[in-house]
């Protein structure tokens, strides 16, 4: 096959464009997630959207709305249970999101839907319908707009919530804004990579950027670049491997992370070896 072959199909080009957009949103949010230590939160919310998707189908609502609601429910329920028991937060979260995910699976077998479970779990970037495309686009653009507008407040909130409160920022509100942004991002990424792999898109770009730079604004740019590159190459490669594009995207990201981990100029493995002598 010729190496330009994938570009001759409009579904491939579309997939690359959507991948690039979704990748950018995920990358920007992943910077906050990684710095705040919310990786598990990303995993939890992404699994918790499943019952919401099925529920929204039953009610005839856009799937994105259902996903957003159950995603947020998972996060707030975790906070509430944690405040009322001695059990630690990550444990509570583990119970709640697996519970919701299981509920979603049971609902799925009981409800006749024309949504394929595989598409929800693993994404369907090559065959996104028009309506889903619009949902993805809206979720992505909204989320990106809000994060970039509030990026300094969110950064201060992640870095030093005490100081944020001292200068009169509403930290409670910022907490919920960040949660809502996370849920919005997951909704945007759902069609592209699916529930099971979306967490990778939400963590890896931020980690790569954290290894490569010591300034937050540069971190945003580096994360977005690495994410866009891996999403586009992922889709491209999947054409030749005949593999799931979502999985290819995540795989490329993991490879870039491995490279950064070893070769990062200041915080890489080789650099610290060199210093140790």
């Amino acid at each position, binding site marked *: 096959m010729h190496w330009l072959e994938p570009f001759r199909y409009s579904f491939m080009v579309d997939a690359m464009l959507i991948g690039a957009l979704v990748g950018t949103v995920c990358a920007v949010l992943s910077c906050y997630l990684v710095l705040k230590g919310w990786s598990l939160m990303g995993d939890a919310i992404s699994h918790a959207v499943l019952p919401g998707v099925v529920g929204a189908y039953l009610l005839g609502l856009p799937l994105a709305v259902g996903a957003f609601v159950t995603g947020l429910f998972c996060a707030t329920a975790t906070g509430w249970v944690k405040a009322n028991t001695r059990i630690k937060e990550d444990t509570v979260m583990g119970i709640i999101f697996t519970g919701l995910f299981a509920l979603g699976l049971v609902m799925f077998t009981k409800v006749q839907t024309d949504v394929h479970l595989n598409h929800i779990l693993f994404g369907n970037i090559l065959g996104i319908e028009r309506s889903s495309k619009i949902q993805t686009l809206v979720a992505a653009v909204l989320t990106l707009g809000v994060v970039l507008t509030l990026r300094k407040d969110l950064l201060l909130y992640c870095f*030093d919530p*005490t100081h944020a409160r001292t200068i009169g920022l509403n930290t409670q509100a910022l907490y919920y804004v960040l949660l809502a942004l996370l849920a919005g991002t997951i909704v945007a990424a759902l069609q592209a990579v699916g529930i099971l792999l979306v967490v990778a898109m939400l963590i890896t770009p931020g980690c790569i950027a954290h290894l490569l730079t010591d300034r*937050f604004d540069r971190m945003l740019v580096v994360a977005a670049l690495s994410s866009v590159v891996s999403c586009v190459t992922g889709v491209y490669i999947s054409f030749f491997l005949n593999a799931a594009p979502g999985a290819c995207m995540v795989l490329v990201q993991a490879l870039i992370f491995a490279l950064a981990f070893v070769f990062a100029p200041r915080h890489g493995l080789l650099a610290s070896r060199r210093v140790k002598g």
Partner: protein
Amino acid sequence: MSDASTPLSIEVTDVTVAYTNGNVALRDTTFSLHSGTVCALVGVNGSGKSTLFKVIMGFLKPAKGTVRIGGRPVKEAQKRNLVAYVPQSEEVDWTFPVSVWDVVMMGRYGSMNFLRIPREEDRRIVRESLERVGMSEYKDRQIGELSGGQKKRVFLARALAQRGRIMLLDEPFTGVDVKTETAIIDLLEELREDGHIILVSTHNLGSVPEFCDRVVLVNRTVLASGPTAQIFTEENLAKAFGGVLRHFKFDHTDLPGSARNEVLLLSDDERPLLLGQDGAPKRSGVGTKTGPLVEDSRK
């Protein structure tokens, strides 16, 4: 922006604070501070100094009593960016990708518009604040790449950059060298001249009479509060510290047979406090005088 016309005060009235585990850290605490003062908050470990700061900041809700700043609730004071606070230990992630400059600039956020775009004025204030704590040359360092004392100075600079007219400093001198300590003290005195209220907790009993015009002694409640000369006496300190203070008596008499010239040295482990025979605190340079003093005392 903190506007200069508001009368400045902190009023803590009858405050009782209990932690969620039922531990009552402060009981019936009352004191007040007014414009143009540097006040020391002194007490043993666990006496409730940090707790008192957290209550004034509104991070802990008192079970009983009220805290008012400039006659208004704490929340309003924060909205108006009136209070700057430097906690005892910064619980931040030191690998965070922010520079010294970025951190100090965060002190300005409260007076910027919601996009937080720094104006020339903000940059000038940040530059000045860094200069005042002697950290200008480190402005581009990532914050994790600093020593403990340098980190402390950066957060102090951030509080300065905030330009709050009330400053709460929880043990700012721990782990800071003498040169920086002197610089910070000079700074606090300047701020007092400008009419600020500064509340500093410290274990450096020796330096308290040097720069604090008022003292609040705490041990799970306010034991005494008022002007340094009246409050900072052996009797009150003994009450605040019980048997915990190191206690040395030197008979500083050059001529045998002359009147006794006894000096008392009290220490809570950091810089010691010297009390003369009249019981009044001796000022300044206490630490360095102890050496010759001991040599001179002929028995």
